[in-house]
């Protein structure tokens, strides 16, 4: 009996392959959208995590020496004293970075992350094998050593065993530095007692830039969630249609004695199978999308780190799982309501075509009530809520509320149109469009969300870029940064640099609490580098001049927000009072910061000497000077940083993000367009009885087709107009609420009308494309079919 029922249900698809196609493709596209965004996101993260981990900088404390060399005996002495340190040998092999690690002692999460193909063997460890990306290996000539390609190593880096590295670099018995594991045993003697010549460098934490990219990732994740919401609407529409189309069959089956429970079970399992298939197709599509977009995203993020990150896509199991989970879960979510309705449906309930989309007056009242409540809730959350959860809850309330309100708003607008219509066709057009609305509302909601997401994300990304540019100008203003190991070296380096460059700007900081918050106090040299680039969010008149004259201080936004300090307030630094004259954006910094001018800083903190220096100089001379510095002082490579190069590269690759955003925009709209197409196709057959009388009274079929397209364009335009404020509200929520809650600082919001206009055009094009086929079909309907409407009329 089950077999018979299944056969009957499936026979529907055999006779109506187009409906099956739209269902599967709708599901697939929704999944593709989700998994594509996820894939890009995950791959980008994985790529730069690999880079960060391979380099190992910052994440862990390190033991270093002034001359960059640590005797292996000192390493053993530290180990035997209980110190959990791991050796690193670092140098240049044919101009590229070679890093030697000890697999057994390196802290977890460091090193070539995945070598599950069994590459690590006796030979790997002892026989001298180097790991690198294929690109990097290709740059190596004439080295008698086994090479293994691994995508998990940061590009431009060779990774090998510490012993092999010593051999290749002629550093027998010598190490470059030691990584200190996070967990250390009890009863450890202090470093100074064991190896007095070595010093402990605390973990540097993520750089400012790294924290900024966290924000970028949050934004990408938000985009992923939005695409999920769009997908769910589409899936919901597709499933609802599938149910509605088969409702008469289901009723007949039950009348003939097929038990309801079995029917529900059959449909559920059928949906499960379909969703798995569609999910798999979707993940595949998503993979293609991601593969097309990835090089740019990878470049974007790696650019932020100043190291190239591999742009190849790896098919990670988590995408398959999350993609399939989305397809199955989304289908389940969308189908549960339909299944529930089916289970509750009295057997004899008439097969009212599209009853699911037609709303009784009472239903509309409830929908209006829900929409208004959600929007009010979003407003209240914006005004009163706090915390990241409130931020996301606000987003959800805003989006769902707006989606629910859409059909009602459109109804009002169309009603207005109808009341103003003159002429019989125009009157019919408005009335008919209004009557169509319930059937199209799900698809239009999807379009609304897609549009809003696009407006929101474009605004967010563009605002982010403007902010980021400003931030780079502010923070990486100097062309070259030099990190010295101690005061003596600092003096020598300063003396070395002075005659060779425009100016050397010492960077020094003291840490103390300001109003109970840990704060770094900086004392910059009076120079245009600061005056020109540090833009205040708020300031007193003539702030920089006053500060350079020693009359006051500037603080960062974080300190101002957390300690509730305004311009003109007084703070205490090292016991001295200072008026706050400026507040500057300090994107990504978790703690407070304050600036006073150099002479004031020296008076407040006479013992603090600068170990770091910013160097202003012609950018083209940077490489030569870098080499000279490294030759003269034997500094580790990482201590001399060409920030100008990184900045230029970062900005360049950041711009490529827009390609990605643009492509995702088009994809989202394509999916929404598909939803419209599906709805129109389904409506088309049911609309014959409505159109036939109009046709009979003298409207040509092609005219009817044109009117159908016009209808789609008008609905899309109206939806777009409503999507614009929603998208801006979305962007505002992300930048001013979610970002503040997540990171403690607010991204300024900028508006980009040209982008919005372009998006509106996309949306209308998508609607036209979606309406085209049904319209052509209508134009080609045989008159006999239209006549049938009359002969069959009951």
């Amino acid at each position: 009996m089950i077999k018979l029922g299944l056969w009957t249900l499936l026979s529907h698809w055999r006779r109506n392959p187009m409906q099956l196609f739209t269902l599967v493709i709708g599901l697939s596209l929704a999944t593709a959208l989700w998994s594509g965004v996820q894939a890009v996101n995950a791959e980008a993260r994985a790529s730069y995590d690999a880079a960060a981990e391979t380099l190992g900088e910052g994440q862990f404390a390190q033991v270093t020496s002034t001359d960059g060399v640590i005797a292996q005996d000192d390493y053993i002495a530290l180990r035997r004293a209980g110190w959990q340190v791991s050796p690193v040998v670092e140098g240049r092999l044919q101009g590229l970075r070679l890093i030697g690690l000890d697999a057994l002692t390196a802290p977890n999460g460091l090193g070539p992350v995945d070598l599950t193909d069994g590459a690590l063997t006796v030979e790997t460890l002892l026989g001298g094998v180097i790991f690198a990306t294929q690109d990097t290996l290709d740059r190596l000539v004439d080295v008698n050593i086994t090479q293994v390609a691994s995508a998990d190593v940061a590009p431009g880096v060779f990774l090998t065993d510490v012993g092999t590295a010593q051999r290749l670099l002629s550093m027998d018995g010598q190490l470059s530095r030691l990584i200190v594991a996070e967990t250390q045993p009890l009863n450890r003697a202090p470093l100074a007692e064991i190896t007095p010549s070595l010093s402990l460098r605390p973990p540097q934490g993520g750089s400012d830039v790294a924290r900024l990219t966290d924000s970028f990732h949050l934004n990408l994740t938000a985009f992923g969630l939005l695409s999920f919401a769009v997908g769910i609407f589409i899936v919901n529409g597709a499933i609802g249609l599938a149910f509605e189309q088969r409702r008469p069959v289901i009723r007949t089956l039950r009348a003939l004695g097929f038990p309801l429970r079995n029917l529900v079970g059959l449909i559920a399992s059928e949906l499960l199978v379909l969703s798995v298939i569609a999910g798999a197709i979707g993940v595949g599509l998503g993979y293609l999308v991601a593969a097309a977009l990835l090089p740019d995203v990878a470049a974007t993020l790696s650019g932020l780190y100043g190291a190239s990150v591999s742009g190849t896509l790896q098919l990670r199991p988590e995408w398959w799982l999350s993609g399939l989970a989305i397809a199955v879960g989304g289908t389940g979510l969308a189908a549960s309501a339909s299944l529930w309705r089916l289970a509750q449906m009295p057997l004899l309930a008439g097969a009212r075509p599209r009853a699911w989309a037609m709303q009784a007056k009472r239903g509309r009242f409830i929908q209006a009530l829900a929409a208004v409540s959600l929007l009010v809730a979003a407003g209240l959350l914006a005004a009163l809520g706090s915390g990241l959860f409130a931020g996301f809850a606000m987003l959800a309330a805003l989006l769902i509320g707006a989606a629910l309100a859409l059909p009602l708003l459109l109804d009002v607008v169309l009603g207005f149109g109808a009341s103003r219509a003159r002429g019989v066709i125009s009157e019919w057009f408005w009335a008919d469009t209004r009557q169509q609305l319930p059937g199209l509302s799900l698809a239009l909601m999807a379009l609304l969300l897609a549009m809003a997401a696009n407006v929101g994300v474009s605004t967010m990304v563009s605002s982010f870029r403007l902010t980021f540019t400003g931030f780079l100008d502010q923070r990486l203003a100097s062309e070259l940064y030099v990190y010295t190991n101690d005061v003596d070296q600092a003096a020598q380096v300063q003396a070395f640099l002075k005659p060779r460059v425009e100016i050397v700007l010492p960077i020094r900081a003291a840490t103390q609490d300001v109003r109970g918050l840990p704060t770094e106090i900086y004392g910059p040299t009076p120079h245009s580098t600061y005056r020109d680039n540090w833009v205040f969010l708020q300031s007193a008149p003539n702030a920089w001049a006053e500060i350079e004259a020693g009359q006051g201080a500037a603080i960062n936004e974080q300190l101002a927000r957390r300690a509730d300090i305004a311009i003109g307030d007084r703070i205490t630094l090292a016991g001295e009072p200072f008026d706050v004259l400026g507040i500057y954006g300090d994107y990504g910094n978790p703690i407070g910061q304050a600036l006073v001018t150099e002479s004031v800083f020296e008076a407040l903190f006479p013992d603090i000497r600068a170990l770091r220096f910013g160097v202003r100089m012609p950018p083209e001379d940077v490489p030569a000077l870098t080499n000279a510095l490294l030759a003269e002082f034997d500094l580790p490579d990482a201590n001399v940083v060409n920030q100008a190069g990184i900045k230029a590269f970062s900005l360049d690759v950041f711009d490529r993000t827009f390609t990605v955003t643009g492509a995702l925009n088009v994809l989202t709209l394509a999916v929404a367009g598909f939803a419209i197409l599906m709805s129109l196709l389904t409506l088309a057959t049911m609309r014959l009885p409505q159109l036939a009388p109009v046709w009979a009274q003298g409207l040509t079929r092609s005219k009817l087709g044109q009117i159908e397209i016009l209808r789609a364009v008008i609905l899309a335009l109206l939806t777009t107009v409503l999507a614009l404020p929603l998208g801006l509200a979305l962007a505002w929520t992300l930048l001013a609420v979610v970002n503040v809650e997540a990171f403690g600082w607010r991204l300024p919001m900028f508006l980009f009308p040209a982008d919005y206009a372009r998006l509106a055009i996309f949306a209308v094009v998508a609607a036209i494309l979606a309406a085209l086929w049904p319209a052509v079909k209508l134009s080609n309907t045989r008159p006999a079919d239209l006549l049938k409407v009359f002969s069959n009329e009951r």
Partner: protein
Amino acid sequence: MILQVTDLKKSFSGPEGTFSILNGVSMTLDSGETLALTGESGSGKSTLLHLVGGLDQPSSGKVLIDGEDIVQLDDAGRASVRRDKVGVVFQQFNLIPSLTVGANIAFQARLAGRNDPDWNADLTQRMGLSEQVAKYPEQLSGGQQQRVAIARTLAARPKLVLADEPTGNLDEATADTVMALMLDLVAETQSALLMVTHSERLAAQTSRRLHLRAGRLA
């Protein structure tokens, strides 16, 4: 006795309050009997048919089919009664559009586990549908579709055939042919027929008739 209905009541609540559509109907039907149920629109005849067929639940009363009160059964139990004991011929045919005529005819018999290809072939032939078995319902005329629906019902050899205006969508000549066939076959299979109709001409062809007026048998 295949059917015994006792004091069957059914009321609906609508916007203007509750109104009764059946006010205590009692009746019986024996195997081999054919009964026409007539009455004006709204007299409750379709409702009575639906209740007897287990398609709907009464407000009170009993419906014994083959000695079993189907009112007391749960949904699955009633589904099983519909499958095994009752066959319904609808005015709107209710064929499964995605199945061929042949598959439609065999459908309920297969559900009930009583599929007999010879009997199906015999029915198909006598219904004049032999040429149509490979076609889909939408390719058939109304009369042909109704003959498929009747064949589907009879193929399962139900003890009780229920028909709701079975020829309501057919022209007079076709209706007579279909009706004659159905009566012949019911007699041949020793089933009982309960037919709702408003046509005096059809009602005259059955062995008994009952008239419903305002929810009561007159």
